[in-house]
């Protein structure tokens, strides 16, 4: 359990944002933490979609249950938060 800073690049938004998460958080929890700062503020919610996390510029989503500590992120590394049809 430790605070861990990530940088969120949220699909549809215009700016990277600092998102503090916890090393025990799953990728779903990372996506939810990032959504707080984009969805409903500058990005419309997309019913019927879930949010997935991938390394910035990557093509593969990280497993939804993977923990931050297991992902091997560097502090402040940028992650893409992408809408996926549920």
């Amino acid at each position, binding site marked *: 359990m430790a605070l861990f*800073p990530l*940088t969120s*690049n949220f*699909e*549809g*938004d*215009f*700016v*990277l*944002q*600092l*998102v*503090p998460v916890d090393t025990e958080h799953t990728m779903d929890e990372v996506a939810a933490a990032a959504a*707080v*700062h984009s969805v*409903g*503020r*500058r*990005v*419309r919610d997309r019913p019927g979609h879930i949010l997935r996390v991938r390394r*910035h*510029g990557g093509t593969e989503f990280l497993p939804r249950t993977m923990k931050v500590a297991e992902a091997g992120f*560097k*502090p*402040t*590394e*940028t992650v893409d938060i992408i809408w996926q049809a549920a």
Partner: protein
Amino acid sequence: MAVLNRMDWYDLARSTNWTPKYVTEDELFPPALSGEFGLPLSAWEHYDEPYKQTYPEYVKVQREKDAGAYSVKAALERSRIFENADPGWKSVMKAHYGAIARGEYAAASAEARMMRFSKAPGMRNMATLGCMDEIRHGQMQLYFPHEHVSKDRQMDWAFKAYDTNEWAMIAARHFFDDIMMTRDAISVSIMLTFSFETGFTNMQFLGLAADAAEAGDHTFANLISSIQTDESRHAQIGGPALKVLIENGHKAEAQKRVDIAVWGAWKLFSVLTGPIMDYYTPLEHRKQSFKEFMEEWIVAQFERALTDMGLDLPWYWDIFLKDISQTHHGMHLGSYFWRPTLWWNPAAGVTPDERAWLEEKYPGWNDTWGQCWDVFIDNVVDGNMAMTYPETLPYVCNMCQLPILGVPGKGWDVKDYPLEYNGRLYHFGSEVDRWVFQQEPERYAGHLSIVDRFLAGMIQPMDLGGALQYMGLAPGEIGDDAHNYAWAEVYRALRETRKAS
């Protein structure tokens, strides 16, 4: 006694180089301050300034300029222009004075470095006049806003902005420290005068003078026109220096300095001037879009200046040409969304009519930037104001110190340009910002961005209140919507009409 014509004696009188006997040339002109190009005094004697002016001429002309600007101010002091001005226009003045006024004094120091340490006699003469120009600009741009301080507390930022850690000021200081406060005399001439002043100061001052006159603010229009006449003279200090460097086999070093400074200037103007021209200035007073202005006054003019000089266009020119349609929309949305962190009240500039103008000038605006604004506007109309404010920091670039942003909505294209250096992960807003860092990493590596400072625990408490305190924004100074959201009424009415039908 007959007086010689200026050109009969000017060249001789300003040929003030001599051969030092008691010290070495390097002691008289230390390379760190005079420029480490290995060129002797004799090479710099070929420096030929295109704009020649003597001290008596300078004093006479400057006196007339001052008399003009100060008399307009005195005549209009009781006109209540400030009280009656559109709030968007007041924001333009506040942003301009805060970002510029104290920087003029800093520029005087940079001119003084050229005045003393340049090996080119002609440059020393021009920089002497340039130094006095900058002192005049500092004095005027502190004196003119002072009459408004008692009416509006944000006007105090004309005086204090440079002493704060407000994020835009960190960005401005980072840029000016890089191009003019920590460079040798020759680099200053290239980076400050040729790159920044020829290219971009023209735009800030010419564009704003036109907008000020349109807005009926003749005091401000006269002030900045008066300043611009000085800029157009001392901006010519760098050109002949570039010529000397190129003739002596130093084109690559010259080009690199131009490329670094032009990019930094562009980023700063994308946040300072872009929002002003395309969003704050009332629609009926807009002459050109920011992009049109950039294309006419910067792109065309700068391409010509570079080619005439024998330099190449910066390697990133295609990136730059694409960015002038995009970046400032993000800078506006970002500065507006994080508006409590500004010392002025930004105008949203997104009524249906304004959006139609934006769509015409920037096809696709509604499908990209407009998508973010749609959500924002719904929140305002619904009274859901909490969601119109941020709860975290935008990530800022470790070079320009401005938010890392891109195109939102249907054209989503936002990228980070990271770099790991000595175990620290840096983030950049563009390939160019990262390239600048890579040219001289040790020059920049130790700087902490506002986000780095937050993560290092330097901002306490770690919330908006702590951030505002860190930035020096006192209650009564923090920014909010320029028109108190009155512009949203039209959307409220549209919604009612839709419901009724």
